[in-house]
């Protein structure tokens, strides 16, 4: 789960990471109650990246200009992401910018510091970055090794090391996937300020983080409706442009099925991994949610029953066909309790494919007819 900038900054402040004084507003009139002096900064609170380039950050030199800008910004949608509110901050006097983040490094299998002696950058494409793997248990010297690699010295060395330690504590305490300060600003008074920040909470850990209880729904606003609904049901749905709805058990198999559909000339309408061990009810929910997509002409169900039992899937199919007798279904079922499933579906007229390629070819050809 990604947090909005204003949320990330509140959390930074709780962990002793200084941020500019800021006020979140949802109506232009609220600007009248803010007394930062001028100019001030107005920033769209959106989930997507590229906000600056899209014009989502503006400076106002007086209240009139501020209200006009606020009105415009509050109605902006940036890279598909709706503006939730504005964060208003005084303009900061910047002596220098840095980049600082903590994330999990897949290759090393541990958290790492990523930092750069320049800020506001696209970290993926920067050459100036330094990385320091973070051993467990943590001690602050790791942050000092980072500060040294950044080429810092004196007071700034100590301040950046201290802030990096705080950022790691936050990352660990709140089970984050990413804690990023970009840019980390050195003010003309040699103080550090997190001018912009990004926090990504690990989805699997959210249930043990009381702070984020109930946040999930309000942070999926940019997701298409059916994807949001799936997430709440514990299903992994990704919608695509085609007309063949794909449902499998297991992420790799779902991707492989999707790839085969494309390879054999079809167009996948979605990726839906119903997960391992789904019972009749969950399987039915999965089929229904794909069925709700008006672009989908054919539903291709591919179940290789290991932990998922084929008879549970067959039960869901029987119920679905009762409700939607006209929907074109192509079903491949194999594995645990396959024999029971076959008996259950014997009277339905539904042909069961034991082989995946045969099923995919059938789905592709049926979809072409349907178009």
């Amino acid at each position, binding site marked *: 789960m990604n947090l909005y900038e204003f949320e990330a900054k509140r959390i930074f402040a709780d962990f002793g990471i200084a941020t500019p004084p800021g006020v979140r507003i949802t109506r232009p009139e609220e600007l009248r109650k803010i007394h930062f002096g001028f100019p001030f900064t107005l920033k769209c609170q959106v989930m997507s990246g590229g906000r600056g380039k899209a014009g989502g950050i503006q400076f106002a030199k007086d209240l009139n200009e501020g209200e006009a800008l606020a009105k415009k910004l509050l109605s902006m949608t940036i890279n598909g992401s709706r503006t939730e509110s504005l964060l208003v901050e005084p303009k900061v006097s910047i002596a220098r910018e840095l980049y600082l983040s903590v994330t*999990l490094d*897949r*290759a090393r*299998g*541990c*958290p790492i510091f990523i930092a750069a002696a320049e800020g506001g950058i696209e970290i*993926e*494409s920067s050459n100036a970055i330094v990385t320091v793997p973070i*051993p*467990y248990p943590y001690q602050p010297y790791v942050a000092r090794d980072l500060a040294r690699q950044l080429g810092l010295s004196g007071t700034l060395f100590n301040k950046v090391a201290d802030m990096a330690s705080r950022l790691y504590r936050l990352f*660990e305490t709140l*089970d984050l*996937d990413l804690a990023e300060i970009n840019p980390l600003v050195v003010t003309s008074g040699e103080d550090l300020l997190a001018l912009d920040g990004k926090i990504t909470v*690990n*989805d*699997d*850990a959210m*249930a*043990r983080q009381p702070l984020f209880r109930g946040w999930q729904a309000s942070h999926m606003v940019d997701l298409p409706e059916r994807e949001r609904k799936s997430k709440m049901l514990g299903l*992994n749905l*990704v919608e*695509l442009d085609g007309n063949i709805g794909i449902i*499998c*058990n*297991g*992420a*790799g*198999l*779902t*991707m*492989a099925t*999707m*790839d*085969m*559909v*494309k*390879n054999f000339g079809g167009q*996948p309408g979605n*990726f839906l*991994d119903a*997960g*391992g*061990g789904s019972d009749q009810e969950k399987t039915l929910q999965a089929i229904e949610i794909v069925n709700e997509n008006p672009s989908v002409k054919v539903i291709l169900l591919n179940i*290789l*029953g*290991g*932990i998922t039992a084929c008879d549970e899937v067959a039960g869901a199919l029987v119920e679905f066909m009762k409700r939607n007798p006209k929907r074109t279904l192509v079903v491949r079922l*194999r*594995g*645990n309790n396959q024999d029971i499933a076959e008996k259950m579906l014997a009277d339905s007229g539904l042909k069961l494919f034991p082989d*995946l*390629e045969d099923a995919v070819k059938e789905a592709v050809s049926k979809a072409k007819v349907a178009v």
Partner: protein
Amino acid sequence: MILVNKNTKVIVQGATGKMGAAHTKRMLSYGTQVVAGVTPGKGGEKVPGTDVPVFDTVREAAEKTGATCSVIFVPPYLVLDAGCEAIDAGMSLLVVITEGMPPQDTAKLTSMAKSRGVRMIGPNCPGIITPGQTLLGILPGMIFKPGPVGMVSRSGTLTYEIALALSDADHGQSTCVGIGGDPVKGMEYPEVLTAFNNDPDTEVIVLIGEIGGNAEEEAAAFVKENIKKPVVAYIAGQTAPPGKRMGHAGAIISGGKGTAQSKMKALQEAGIEVALTPREVAEKVSKLRSQPVHR
């Protein structure tokens, strides 16, 4: 075969839960020597539906049975504790089936395992099977058969699909290791590939990958440098859109990195045969087995 064989003595942590009990039964019926279950507070009971004794702690289970491997089915937030317990009690291999373990917990557990010289497979993995001998995890045993193909995979059901294609084409398997779909995990490709390279029972290696991260690119470089046996690879997610998590926590193309194309290119450049469908994996294995290649 690698890592496990018919003599491997196994405990199951979380054996009295629904999943743990069901798979303990399935492992037993496959022939796995499941010698103990561990559930705190249930010591003295039996794993439901079996004669396998349950102990309160791994230490006691290990002392009483001589087990050296643990298959872990406990809930996600308890895996770190259970894994540390298994390491401290002297287990030499952990197989973590549990899905949804917070990755920072995984990082802590793998660091602990490494520092103690313990091997770990998973989390979020189907386990490991040496067909005809033993099965640790949730793989459907009936799909596999003994033979000379070593399999290593980040996926679960996709692995079964490809094993099915191999078995149908009469290419049995020496051992199949599902390393799991999480971004942070225990054993990675290189460690498993090395084991297959040194295993006299393995002739051909099948590597199954998917989008996200760069483990396959690293595996390609590793194969080129270190692996003498022929390798066939398959990468899932060739048509996956960027920025979307495709089921597995680790399966996401971000910042233009981790695409199937990048992985397939790296693998091909390392001299690895890349198949586009599960069936094609079996076809390429057939070709290799009839015309042995030596790098």
